[in-house]
């Protein structure tokens, strides 16, 4: 009896379900429900399908090279600060390929900074063993800094150059022209002197001014015609130099050149000699005559 009732109930339920899905709307809604089920399942699964590896904070402003050698295992790394921004000229490779440097240090890290981002604390805390900077930058922190001048570049001048002939500080010449400047108020030759000259002549508002974060881009803009006139250093660049400029309007002739400063603790050490060799190699290989004319002020004791 119980079995009969159960069979009847099951049959009744089956018929009722079949009746419900005999309506075309309900029948095709069932297909839609199946589709939505699979879609929902797929979306739910897809939402948890991806994980990200953590992105660690890295100092991308530093170029590094290292080597593992039993001779210098445990040696510290050489940290160089380029506050003149000669990085494009091959500074990094010169130190990384120096055998002397490899002997004395376990790695080389070079940071090139724009002058307006230079942190004086790096000088006070002697963060770097070797610093390339303009003398006026170092003289700011003269008391208390632990660096000694070991080599310098010659004095240079500041001029305005153009591919459309020698520039003139006149409204007639500058009208309609685009002047490129370095986007760094600390730069004497590429900002301070040109701006002062324009102001003195009352011409600051005449040319359209575009400011560049790097010398390289400013020079490139001159050659690709984006700007008509830029400030450039006055230097006797020979035919083999990468920097070839037409004669320009000289604004200043004597500006102290950049210099190399070494941590006092390393003076006259083997490291000092190794770094000196590396600087000489850099001078030999650099493609600008100005940077080939490196003058050693304080040689290492071994020489």
């Amino acid at each position, binding site marked *: 009896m119980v079995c009969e009732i159960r069979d009847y109930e099951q049959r009744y339920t089956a018929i009722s379900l079949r009746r419900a899905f005999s309506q075309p709307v309900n029948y095709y809604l069932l297909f839609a429900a199946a589709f939505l089920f699979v879609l929902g399942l797929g979306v739910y699964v897809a939402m948890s399908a991806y994980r990200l590896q953590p992105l660690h904070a890295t100092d991308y402003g530093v170029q590094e090279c290292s080597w593992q050698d039993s001779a210098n295992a445990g040696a510290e790394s050489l940290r160089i600060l380029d506050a003149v921004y000669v990085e494009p000229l091959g500074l990094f490779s010169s130190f990384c390929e120096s055998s002397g440097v490899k002997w004395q240090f376990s790695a080389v890290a070079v940071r090139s900074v724009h002058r307006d*981002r230079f942190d004086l604390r790096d000088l006070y805390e002697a963060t770097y063993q070797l610093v390339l900077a303009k003398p006026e930058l170092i003289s700011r922190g003269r008391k208390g800094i632990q660096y000694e001048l070991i080599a310098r570049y010659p004095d240079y001048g500041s001029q305005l150059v153009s591919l459309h002939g020698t520039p003139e500080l006149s409204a007639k010449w500058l009208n309609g022209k685009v002047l490129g400047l370095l986007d760094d108020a600390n730069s004497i030759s590429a900002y301070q002197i040109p701006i002062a000259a324009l102001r003195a002549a009352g011409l600051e508002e005449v040319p359209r001014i575009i400011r560049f974060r790097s010398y390289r881009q400013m020079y490139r803009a001159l050659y690709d015609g984006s700007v008509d006139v830029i400030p450039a250093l006055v230097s006797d660049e020979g035919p083999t130099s990468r920097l070839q400029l037409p004669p320009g309007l000289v604004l200043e002739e004597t500006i102290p050149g950049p210099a190399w400063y070494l941590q006092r603790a390393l003076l006259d050490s083997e490291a000092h000699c190794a770094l000196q060799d590396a600087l000489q190699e850099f001078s030999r290989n650099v493609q600008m005559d100005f940077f080939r004319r490196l003058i050693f002020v304080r040689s290492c004791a071994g020489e």
Partner: protein
Amino acid sequence: MNRRWQLAISLWLVGSIVLACVLHVGSARRLAAQLEAPLTEHLREAFDESFFSSDENRVNDNRALARVGEQVNRALQNVVRERWYAPRNECAVQLQQIDGVQLAAEPAASLLPLTLPRNGVDRKVMVGVSCTANLPILFGASALLGALFLAICLRLPAPLSATHRRLLNDLLGQDYSPDEAFEIVSTYSEVDLQLNESQASLVEGLHQPASRNMAQVLQLVTDAGVASLTPDQARWFALGYRLCAADKDAALAFARHPDGVEIDLPGRELRVRGRAVPTSATPLFYYAWYALRRVQGDGWVTNPPSNRPDRGAGAELAQFMARYDGHAKAVRDLEQSGLKARTLDQNRSKIKDELVAVLGEELAAGYLFEARKHEDGVQMSYRLALPASCVSVLS
């Protein structure tokens, strides 16, 4: 393949495409959403503000941007770890462009735009995200969808068509229970339920709502033999089905039998389409007499005038009846009084009653009499409605 399966396959194909697109696009968006915050934070740490100009008419240190960008791209290699069931896998994330500086040579499949505020200016960063479709997973999703559709098609019958629903509503209107009506209707296909005229008339004739016999009736009318009957045959079938105690084959034979009447005088039996129709003897003889007239000539028999019975015809009929042991009184009346119009009328009426009682008015009509006025304009003439070829008198 019937229409339901074709539709199911079409729905599956369309559904699979939509599913693949949604999973593909959805997972791309999900990945982009997951990448946005950590990537923006990393770029803020990676790209020092000193590389960027601070306002209009200022140009970035693009070389430094390119150098750092290259290092960032190295760090982004394998940054995405996909699980095996991800709809898209082998995902590569690369910086494409930062503030106008192009970093990647090859364009990516999709771009995630980010904003990096540097030196008070929002820099546009384009991050390329390229993944490949995880085909096994997409096919698996399609297969799951197909399996569900297949289960639906196999487990559930096709939905009721308009024909089914019309019949269902008719049954519900005749107090069938919903389940009973559904079960009856769903037993047949739409084609089966598209009844022709013959079938429809049979359903109308045989269905008795009180006894809820629609299931049996439909089973009967959907029989191939029954469905092929002409409307006229269908009427005979309905009659035969009742006469033959619901014997379908006998009813079919009855329906298909050629129209015709057979009068077996020695056996005193009237057979319509081969089936005996109970009749009284005297009306039978009169019917046979009309039948013989039909077979031998045009069949018209004119009633004699009421005041002048036809003695000749009376003697002939009496002799005819006596030959087959007709009712003695009837024979005597004819011999003595002749053939009267009233007698003819009465016997015709009796045979009509007997035929109608068995065949019904409609079907009996073909086996009764047709009338016309005699050419004298006074008397009526009558003859069998059946053509001579359909009449057979066995003597």
